[in-house]
């Protein structure tokens, strides 16, 4: 069997309305660009998406907003996006704001077979409202549940045809956890190589987590280009 698909559209076969997606990236860094464009092209609606951010108005997950394809976002920060703001205020969009470390761990737990975990983050705040709080060895912790997706979608620098992945610099971010948390995980890679070409010691996501892979060039838009003299 082959895990290799021709493009994002083909790799998203089986994507339907009202599914839950877990998507890698931080801001516009390390996002699976072509998959997001393909989701827009497919036109599926009612999506719940767990991803640290929601892109900007015309790039990244932000492009799914103008099409009104997203029902709910689960994110830690959504500040870079005017469409998001408008839809949220109009009640067209639900948002669950999650502390960044809790979001990373909930996705990690989802992929690792851990249904929930206790964390000190958010105790005594709105985040803990309605959740179990337990005192363990003298400190309070809040119970947080795992996140899993019908699809998980990541971007990697290099991948081989078995699905082994290598990320580059801070484009790694949420991608390794996201890769573990999908019923079907799609890897969008800048460079697709033959099995055996990657050094086993350098592989960051073992191929067992990846069901579909394709190669695609990335635009890699920079959100805030800052330079020194």
């Amino acid at each position, binding site marked *: 069997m082959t895990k290799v698909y021709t493009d994002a559209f083909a790799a998203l076969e089986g994507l339907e309305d009202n599914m839950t997606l877990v998507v890698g990236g931080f801001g516009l*860094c390390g996002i699976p660009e072509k998959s997001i464009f393909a989701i827009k092209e497919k036109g599926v609606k009612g999506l719940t998406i767990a991803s640290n951010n929601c892109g900007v108005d015309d790039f990244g997950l932000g492009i799914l907003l103008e099409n009104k394809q997203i029902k709910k976002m689960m994110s830690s920060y959504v500040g870079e996006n005017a469409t998001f703001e408008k839809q949220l205020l109009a009640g067209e969009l639900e948002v669950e704001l999650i502390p960044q470390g809790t979001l990373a*761990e909930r996705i990690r737990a989802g992929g690792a077979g851990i249904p929930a975990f206790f964390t000190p983050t*958010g105790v005594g*705040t709105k985040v803990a409202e309605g959740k179990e709080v337990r005192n363990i060895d003298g400190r309070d912790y809040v119970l947080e549940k795992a996140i899993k997706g019908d699809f998980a979608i990541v971007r990697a620098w290099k991948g081989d045809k078995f699905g082994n992945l290598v990320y580059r610099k801070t484009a790694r971010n949420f991608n390794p956890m996201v890769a573990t948390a999908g019923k079907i995980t799609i890897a969008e890679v800048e460079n697709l190589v033959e099995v055996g070409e990657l050094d086993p010691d350098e592989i960051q996501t073992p191929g067992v987590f990846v069901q579909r892979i394709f190669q695609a060039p990335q635009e890699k838009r920079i959100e805030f280009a800052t330079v020194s003299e």
Partner: protein
Amino acid sequence: MGMDRNQIAKRIAKEIADGFCVNLGIGIPTLVANYIPDNLQVMLQSENGLLGMGPFPKKEDLDPDLINAGKQTITAVPGASFFSSADSFAMIRGGHIDLTVLGAMQVDEEGSIANWMVPGKLVKGMGGAMDLVAGAKRVIVAMSHTDKNGNPKLLKKCNLPLTGVHCIDRVVSDLGVFDLRDNAFELIEIAPDVEVEQVQQLTEGKLRIAENLKTVEL
């Protein structure tokens, strides 16, 4: 009157010791990096997955795959490492980060902090702030002592939604340096041209004056 943003940052930089791993928030905290002495080995952590953050790159070295938590392009110093968000917050939540410096809209005498949402205004999210205050070994808040209208921001009890409870160790404002101790703000250093009475007047929470009160050295 009091210290400006750069002076606050300069004072906070004195809290950093050789070998520290430090996470700096956005605003005044970012300026702290400018005042870390060159002879100290300090690693700056960026919660999106970098320990060993360097200055902004030269134009020809811009790399879209290398950004900080504010989504700005940056560089990595020798000895730096890249890692996943889960590993990043294992560092933070697991107590491996020596110091975090954050801004705040309000703090209170119990050591609680509010810095992520104002009811009725658009909520953008807490990012990594809740994890940082819950997990860093030491939490220092850099803030202006009063808001735009001159109202105190060092309160008896925060009335904005909290980022964390009983988690702040020290506050550095334009008026001085305050330790959170026994449900009070203890003034341990006062800004050069500020009187204790002025601090008293502009602080709503319980204020205690340290026996050996010093003047901030800049």
